[in-house]
């Protein structure tokens, strides 16, 4: 305890001294930069002079005569310049050649200047870090430790096994020193965790990663668009950044939202909270350290509107139980007529099945469920009919060729013209107008059953779906189509032969 206190006292002194050293370096850099800038200026003046010198054959000048006197004289041989090349070497050259040499030297000066600028920036950043560190150690810098108690986190899915569990990422020596000091300080501040061993820390890291992934996956599933998804990715990416700084175990202990301590990721706090109901509890002062906010997630569900591709929206919450309920609800038909096929979402393919576009009355699978079809269909935006119309138009025009490729490449069975099925289905949605009628929704799966003669099965891009159905279908289809084709050609040949 005495040691800790001693360290506590030493640490801010050390940090202060570090900062002073950093600032010295920065100042040194600035001086050097100034020096090189002067040199550069001189060279530029020289260049100008060299350009004008050969204009006249001889100049009348006042020649310096010793330190105190001048006398009138002439400057002759205006084109002959003796240049000092360095290291006691001279060369006689013309003004133009001298110019070339000057250019060459200016390049060197410029590169030196650039290097200096870079180092200066680096060290300025470091100074920033040490300042933050100082503020932190004082505990008054406006930094708050946010702690979240985790209970019973069920981790779905595989935990990612780190291939090199004990490899530490490379960090600069000075940053490491900062971190060590930080660690000491945090330990000194009497955190509840005690001393975590390395293995525990790595296990904790893995846990957090798994948690992130799980959350990401869930988000992706429900097509939470832009804002939320971005938050997630940015938060997860910045978490990954943090994760990479592996030797900062002090921050890992509580939840994923502990405030980063070295100030490099202060912007994390600017990210909007993911869930609707986060409660902030009291603002504690812990021991002699940072004020702490304890926080816990509430069970308040967040409403997310998701487009299922038929101008309908679903409301989801992010809590698991409610998610499941919602799934069930969705399956039981929040969207008109999507009475199922007894389908529950148990695999990603189910999602693809649901997210189908109705194009010309025929359900065509979407290329990507992540991309919302249009602004109108994205989360939390208002639907405006005119924009919807435009988008529809552009979208269908743009996508029809690509869809063809998709369908043709993936299906094994032969596919006749795409137009054939579209003509046969009732209620073709007009492309260029906002749809304002009733929607009779075709169920994608049953569709495939009655219309075997029509080329594409409902979801040609999901070959693994219902293998037992598709496989028997396919051979059935093939011979049926084969005769059709043959018959057509035959018909053509007969026609040719005939007349």
């Amino acid at each position, binding site marked *: 305890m005495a040691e800790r206190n001693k360290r506590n006292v030493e640490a801010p002194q050390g940090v202060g001294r570090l900062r002073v050293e950093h600032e010295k370096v920065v100042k040194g850099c600035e001086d050097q930069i100034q020096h090189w800038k002067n040199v550069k200026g001189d060279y530029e003046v020289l260049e100008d002079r060299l350009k004008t010198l050969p204009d006249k054959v001889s100049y009348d000048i006042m020649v310096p005569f010793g330190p105190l006197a001048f006398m009138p004289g002439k400057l002759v041989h205006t084109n002959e310049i*003796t*240049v000092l*090349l*360095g*290291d*006691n*070497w*001279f*060369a*006689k*050259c013309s003004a133009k*050649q001298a110019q*070339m*040499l000057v250019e*060459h*030297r200016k390049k*060197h000066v410029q590169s030196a200047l650039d290097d200096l600028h870079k180092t200066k920036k680096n060290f300025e950043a470091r100074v920033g870090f040490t300042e933050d560190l100082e503020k932190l150690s004082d505990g008054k810098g406006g930094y708050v430790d946010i702690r979240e108690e985790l209970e019973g986190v069920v981790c779905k899915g595989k935990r990612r096994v780190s291939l090199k569990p004990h490899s530490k990422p490379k960090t600069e020596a000075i940053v490491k020193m900062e971190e060590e000091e930080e660690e000491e300080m945090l330990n000194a501040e009497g955190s509840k965790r005690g001393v975590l061993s390395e293995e525990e820390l790595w296990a904790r890291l893995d846990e957090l990663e798994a948690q992130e992934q799980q959350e990401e996956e869930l988000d992706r599933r429900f097509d939470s668009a832009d804002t939320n998804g971005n938050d997630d990715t940015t938060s997860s990416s910045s978490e990954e950044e943090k994760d990479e700084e592996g030797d900062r175990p002090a921050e890992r202990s509580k939840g994923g939202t502990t405030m980063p301590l070295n100030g490099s990721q202060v912007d994390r706090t600017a990210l909007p909270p993911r869930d609707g109901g986060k409660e902030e509890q009291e603002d504690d002062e812990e021991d002699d350290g940072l004020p702490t906010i304890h926080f816990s997630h509430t069970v308040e569900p967040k409403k997310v509107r998701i487009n299922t591709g038929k101008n309908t929206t679903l409301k989801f919450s992010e809590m698991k139980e409610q998610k499941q309920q919602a799934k069930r609800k969705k399956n039981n038909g929040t969207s008109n007529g999507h009475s199922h096929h007894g389908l529950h979402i148990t695999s990603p393919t189910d999602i693809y099945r649901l997210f189908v576009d109705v194009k010309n009355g025929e359900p065509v699978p979407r290329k990507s469920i992540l991309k919302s079809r249009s602004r109108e269909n994205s989360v939390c935006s208002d639907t405006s009919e005119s924009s919807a119309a435009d988008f529809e138009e552009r979208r269908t025009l743009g996508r029809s060729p690509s869809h063809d490729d998709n369908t043709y490449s993936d299906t094994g069975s032969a596919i006749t013209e795409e137009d054939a099925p579209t003509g046969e289905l009732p209620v073709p949605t007009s492309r260029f107008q906002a749809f304002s009628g009733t929607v009779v929704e075709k169920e994608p799966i049953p569709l495939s059953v009655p219309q075997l003669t029509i080329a594409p099965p409902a979801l040609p891009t999901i070959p693994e779906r219902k293998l037992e159905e598709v496989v028997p279908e396919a051979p059935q289809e093939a011979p049926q189509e084969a005769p059709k084709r043959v018959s057509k050609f035959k018909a053509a040949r007969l026609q040719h032969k005939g007349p």
Partner: protein
Amino acid sequence: MAEAIQKKLQLELEKYQQMQKDVSKSMSARQKLEAQVTENNIVKEELDLLDTQNTVYKLIGPVLVKQDLEEAKATVAKRLEYINGEIQRYEMLLKDMEKKSEQHREVLSSLQQEYQRAQGRAVGKV
């Protein structure tokens, strides 16, 4: 007993300081060499920019002596090689000195510990 250790400590300390001075001397010599390398590189490049028509002079004392361009280039190249060799030599020297100073440091720290223990014991006894 404590005094003997103290004397030893002081000796070691002096040796260590000497080592440090040597190290810093080698460092500065090496830095000078580095500067020379850069300078000679610039000279070499500038000589390449010139052609044989220009006369090249070398400053030897107060005298500018005419030199052949090719000769000058060769001389500068040789000088560059020599300087690089010197730099290598100094690097080796520096490494050795670093190692030695490490050893000294360890000896010093162990002696210090001994001394402190002896001191503690002496205080305890008293």
